[in-house]
């Protein structure tokens, strides 16, 4: 097989849109590294920043692109195509030479430490690959690695300060990591898909949710329920349902986050969420071992409020997507609800639908907003920052309302556009809040008139689009004879 075709192999598992987007992004990223190197040419040999950048690039590249080879390898195994299977391995080896060995060689030629560069790039690529191809419960720990590099300095030598010390622990760790990846790779290729979600590699879970190309898969949710362990399954509380309880009836029929649960099931879900939240705190605790935890935590308050602000906005996406799926399935809840007697008249059902779908998430967003404002008040953030922080929940609530209304009102808007709008909103929140926080010296960059003007225009555009969509959705919903019409 020609080298070009071998190099193209991992990309074949991606949809065209994803392939183009990822290709361009990585090409730009890759181009940025030598540019940065050229700018710092004089101190280059002594600057481990370039190696670090290359390792980060490798991590992202292997996680997002080369890990896709696992899907191809699975298909090759299932379709009994051994030659394709072998080509996939050859292609990965080729990519390892190009993205790990070659940069290390170049860096050593330029005067850097070849062993450190090789180890760091291999570790970066391995972490990316581990995130995507190890079982999700292991892969998720890769997300905490940046924290280790920031906080574990006292007891874990980093390449910038102690290259030899770094090699002493990183080389065996990298080797073990790759052996682990190879072992799970082999079993993932051969095993049937009948695995529960936590044990499936993230790359396979993402594929199952059809994030690549089609975001409106009808079977994704059913598949998730099917794969979920029984004890993790939320158990619905059917009490107080039936005629006369329209909102509750609809919450049951819509499923998802707003579904009424039995007390034991609710407790179980809360415990799971708390346990998941405890993991980062535990990792932070380990990383700050021997240092005062609370003061460190409060020192990170900027990031905490930023996280809460962003989370309250991100929360809008899941219920909006759920609603979109409901209104895209002609054989599911729509006909059942449309013909169910005793739900109430059309106007009442429309009102109740909005309540059932919006209130649970809006309440959660309000809680997050209060928590965020509480932290902001505790660390004496000024009013300007607090207002910027409020943009997160405000965007989340508007986005949720707009997206819910366009689904309920039968407004046709492509998945891609909706997704792009959400990404635009989240980027805007991230940039605005980060620029407002005092992370870059005493003066917040957002207070510079030019920056403020650009931000204002960007925000006005976002809200104008969202409000226009909400208006169209509302009009569509009002005009519908009943809200459960199939498109």
């Amino acid at each position, binding site marked *: 097989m020609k080298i070009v075709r071998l190099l193209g192999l991992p990309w074949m598992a991606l949809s065209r849109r994803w392939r183009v987007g990822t290709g361009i992004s990585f090409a730009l990223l890759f181009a940025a590294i030598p540019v940065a190197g050229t700018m710092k040419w004089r101190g280059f040999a002594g600057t481990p920043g370039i190696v670090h950048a290359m390792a980060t690039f490798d991590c992202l590249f292997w996680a997002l692109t080369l890990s896709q080879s696992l899907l191809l390898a699975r298909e090759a195994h299932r379709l009994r195509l051994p030659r394709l299977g072998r080509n996939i391995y050859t292609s990965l080896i080729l990519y390892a030479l190009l993205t790990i060995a070659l940069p290390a060689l170049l860096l050593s030629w330029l005067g850097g430490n070849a062993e450190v560069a090789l180890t760091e790039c291999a570790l970066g690529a391995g972490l990316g690959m581990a995130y995507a191809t190890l079982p999700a419960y292991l892969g998720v720990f890769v997300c905490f690695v940046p924290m280790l590099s920031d906080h574990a300095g006292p007891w874990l030598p980093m390449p910038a300060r102690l290259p030899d010390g770094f090699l002493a622990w990183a080389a065996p760790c990298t080797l073990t990591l790759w052996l682990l990846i190879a072992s799970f790779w082999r079993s993932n290729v051969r095993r049937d898909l009948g695995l529960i979600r936590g044990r499936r590699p993230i790359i396979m879970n993402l594929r199952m949710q059809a994030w690549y190309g089609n975001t409106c898969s009808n079977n994704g949710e059913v598949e998730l329920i099917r794969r979920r362990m029984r004890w993790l*399954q939320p158990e*619905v509380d*059917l009490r107080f349902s*039936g005629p006369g309880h329209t909102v509750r009836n609809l919450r049951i029929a819509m499923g998802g986050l707003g579904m009424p649960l039995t007390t034991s099931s609710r407790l179980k879900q809360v415990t799971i969420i708390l346990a998941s939240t405890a993991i980062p705190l535990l990792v932070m605790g380990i990383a700050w071992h021997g240092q005062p935890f609370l003061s460190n935590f409060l020192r990170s308050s900027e990031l905490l409020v930023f996280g809460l602000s962003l989370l309250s906005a991100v929360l809008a996406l899941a219920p909006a997507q759920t609603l979109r799926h409901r209104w895209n399935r*002609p054989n*599911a809840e729509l006909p059942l609800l*449309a*013909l169910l007697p005793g739900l109430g008249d059309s106007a009442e059902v429309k009102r109740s639908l909005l309540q059932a779908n919006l209130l649970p998430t809006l309440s959660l967003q309000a809680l997050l907003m209060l928590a965020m404002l509480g932290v902001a008040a505790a660390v004496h953030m000024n009013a300007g920052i607090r207002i910027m922080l409020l943009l997160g929940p405000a965007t989340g609530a508007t986005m949720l309302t707009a997206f819910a209304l366009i689904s309920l009102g039968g407004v046709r808007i492509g998945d891609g556009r909706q997704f792009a709008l959400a990404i635009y909103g989240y980027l805007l929140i991230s940039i605005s809040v980060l620029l407002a926080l005092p992370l870059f010296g005493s003066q917040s960059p957002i207070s510079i008139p030019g920056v403020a003007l650009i931000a204002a225009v960007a925000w006005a555009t976002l809200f104008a689009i969202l409000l226009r969509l909400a208006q169209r959705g509302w009009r569509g919903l009002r005009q519908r*004879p*009943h809200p459960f019409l199939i498109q």
Partner: protein
Amino acid sequence: MNAMLREKESVAAVPLAARGLTHCYEGSNVLRGVDLALEPGSVLGLIGRNGAGKSTLIRAMLGLLQPLSGSAFVFGEPALKLGDDAKARLAYVPQQPEALAWLTAQQMLDYVGRFYPRWDTEFARKTLERWKIQPNKLLAKLSPGERQRVDLIRALASQPELLVLDEPAAALDPVARRELLREVALRAGDSGTTVLFSTHIVSDLERVASEIAFLHEGHLLLRCGVDETKERYGRLWLPAAKSAAAPAQALSRRRHDDGSLSLVVERDAQGRWPEAAELPGARVDALGLEDLFVEIAE
């Protein structure tokens, strides 16, 4: 005014009626002015090829989608604005039901049952048992056939006066299919339930349907009693030399390589075949339901 009143009275008498339904998806017409009405107690089998518009017609007739033009009525009420009374008398099972996947079969039946005044809990329990469906299993974890059966139980337990089934047997094994058809026939015979079901399995129609309606490319091509079809429709074969004399009215028309012509023709009001059938060399063959379907659909 009088005409409107007459129309209102005429639709009130039938459980399900459609007038001039037209609908299109992405620019292509799926329904082209379909008129259809079901007599009380009848079992109408709606037959047509995949993509003929059967599901769309059913959805439009039940007010589940808004047609581009035309109107539909259920027990005399506009389908798009059904009241609780009409909804309680109606049950619909979609093709490949997917609703409420996060509930168990029992939870789903408990939940839905609360809304129907004549809900038969005992029937639901016994039928779940008879059809060997685990009541505590999540609907998402049932096979497509099991899921379809749970939805059929849901529909039947509400004791509907009008039962609408969209490809009810598509995911069922032969035994389950036979049981379903028996249940449908029983309901129609004993309780006088009106049934509309769509299918492309001709043998199912022959088993239970009293009437068939054939939908082809958005048009309702024929509508008659199942027993009537053999008598009423036939295949007229004309040799090449006589093909010019073929009748203009035919349900289908196919020219063979040797120039001869095959047409599906219908007897007139006096029970006579078209005149061309009398021509020398012409021949009329009887058509079974399946042959008739294939001849028209091809």
